[in-house]
């Protein structure tokens, strides 16, 4: 948890800067709007955290979010009665894609970078084929309420955060980190590494389904809704001090990383800088955060002997 302290300091600094530029941010409605906007990325970051801390990657979540929204619009087509069946279907799709990613990675021994890159391409290709390049249909008001009403989005976010923390405190969390830290040692001490990793991918798929439901609700159908979300989620996790390659980092810090990234985007937007620069900022962050993490490693190795 000590690794997580810097991210909270940075986040606090950014929130103060936003409040200084825009006092509306301090009002309940303003802060609620911010939380609503963060919720999808924070949930994706939580899902991505499980995969990264176990030593893998999930690059497919962005495309999966797009698939979820496009499928929802096409199947619901404005019909309120379809809302709940489709919501359930979306969750099933998320779980299924996660399961396939997990099984291919662990059983077929395809590196997760390749597995999920492949899944990303397959999913975006499938969406393109199915829609002909532009989405059809419409979401129902009942579907959109989750992403549009701030209270709902925040409630879902809280549930996800609590569930993620509880999961990490349970046996699953410990074995997951152990699998990411030292796979061999974990196996030797009886951890079913493959099983926890598959479960991590399933959780990531589930997070993409929930994020898709929130994003579709927030702004309606769009074929670009999931674009580059996988990189935002990975950036958020890395920003939270979680080590790529697995074994170290806290889920709350990863979620705080999502808050920080979104706060940074909000601040840039408030200062009239948007668009392409967001990518550049993300790129700098991801490289710098990993570089800084690497610099610290020798210091870490010294500390046990001193303790």
């Amino acid at each position, binding site marked *: 948890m000590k690794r997580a302290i810097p991210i909270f300091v*940075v986040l606090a600094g*950014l929130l103060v800067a936003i409040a200084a530029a*825009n006092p509306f941010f301090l009002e309940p*409605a303003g802060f609620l*709007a911010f939380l609503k906007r963060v919720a999808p990325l924070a949930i994706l970051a939580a899902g991505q955290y499980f995969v990264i801390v176990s030593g893998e990657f999930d690059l497919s979540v962005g495309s999966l979010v797009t698939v979820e929204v496009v499928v929802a619009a096409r199947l619901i087509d404005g019909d309120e009665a379809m809302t709940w069946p489709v919501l359930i279907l979306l969750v099933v799709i998320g779980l299924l894609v996660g399961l396939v990613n997990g099984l291919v990675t662990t059983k077929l021994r395809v590196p997760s970078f390749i597995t999920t890159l492949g899944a990303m391409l397959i999913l975006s290709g499938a969406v393109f084929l199915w829609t002909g390049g532009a*989405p059809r249909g419409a979401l129902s008001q009942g579907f959109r309420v989750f992403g549009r009403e701030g209270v709902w989005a925040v409630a879902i976010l809280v549930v996800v955060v609590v569930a993620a923390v509880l999961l990490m405190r349970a046996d699953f969390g410990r074995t997951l980190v152990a699998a990411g830290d030292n796979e061999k040692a974990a196996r030797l001490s009886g951890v079913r590494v493959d099983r926890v990793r598959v479960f991590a991918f399933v959780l990531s798929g589930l997070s993409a389904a929930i994020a898709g439901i929130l994003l579709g609700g927030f702004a309606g159908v769009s074929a*670009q809704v999931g674009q580059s979300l996988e990189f935002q989620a990975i950036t958020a996790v890395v920003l939270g001090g979680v080590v790529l390659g697995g074994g170290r980092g806290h889920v709350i810090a990863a979620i705080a990383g999502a808050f920080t990234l979104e706060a940074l985007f909000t601040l*840039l937007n408030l200062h009239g800088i948007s668009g392409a620069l967001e990518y550049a900022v993300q790129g700098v962050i991801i490289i*710098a955060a990993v570089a800084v993490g690497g610099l610290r490693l020798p210091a870490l190795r010294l500390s046990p002997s001193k303790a």
Partner: protein
Amino acid sequence: MRRLLVAVAALALAAAGCASDLPPTGASADPSAAPATSAAASSAPASAGTGAQSDFFVQADYDTQLAMRSQTAEGPADKPWEQAIAPQMVDTAKYKKDGPYHLCFSNAAVNNPWRQVGWTTMQEEVALHKEIKEFTALDAEGKDDKQISDIADLQAKGCDALIISPNTTATLTPAVTGACPEVPVIVFDRGVETDCPVTFIKPIGGYAFGADGAEFLIEKVPAGGKILALRILPGVDVLETRWSAAKVAFDKSQLQVVGVEFTDGDAAKTKSIVSDYIARHGTIDGVWMDAGATAVAAIEAFEDAGVPVPAFVGEDQQDFLQKWKDGNLTAVAPTYPTYQWRTPIIAALKILKGEEVPKMWNLPQPKITQDSLGTYLQPNMPLLHYALCGCESMPGFPGKWGGK
């Protein structure tokens, strides 16, 4: 620990800090100026918020297009896709040949609802003509290189006429130039930098589109009102012309453009940007858009913030028209009519029959106003359908376009 903390904090704050040092040219207004804006509104030059004029702005084209808006088009009154404004006819006798014909089409993409509606409309137009025995179409999927090879492939297929909707202007010009000696070429939608095609078909154009929206806001929003301009991307000629014409109009007005933002055509991003502006300025009195696909997301930002929806510029998509009617909005919808996808087929047949066609086929480009809203709002059509398809009397309507 401390070193990491300092490094990350410095990184994040430096990124934010250096960003705010950039000069507020182009995309955006300086937020530090925002508190002063309401006081200074009536006296400050209104041009302050619109930035520098686009490199794509050509005064002569601007003048021509704005004049065309009030000119009467020639042709059948109930078929705007056959009409032409100020046509300069060219002789096509040398292309005359007997049917049946094989028409070919190199399409830039079908990657947005506008192009989907247009593409459906074109296919239905082909189905209307018995003398077309074969219609070969290749989709370049938004890639210049694919379209260049598509155009080459089509020349080997024995086409009697080649229709091209170029993906980008400059890059496709050599491919079009190469095809011209082989087969009569018809270009529509986006242009190319050569006059070798037999005819170039387009609605009046981007300047007229941009000016229609801006003039509406200038008429409806009281002096000093705050305008937010939303654009998709910089650097695309057809979009640059829309904004540059709006800029000219806003600069001459008493309105104050508080921001010009790029949305990437993304609904979520649009909604976030508009929410930020509402938060920062309290009220926005008018929203100008260079394309209406994300207009509904922008309107929702006002609804979700609990403030009245201001005067709006959208487009002829059904979701916007529906929102306009339901919310009783003050709105206008300039259009870039999808009925222009009918015209190239008609033009190809005219050329092959040796009938003269306009060298520059300027189609009328109507705007939807409060008075004509009822005509264009079609609740039986999909939300993403474009109303000006000119397809209502075609045999496949409405099913082929996804309507009920």
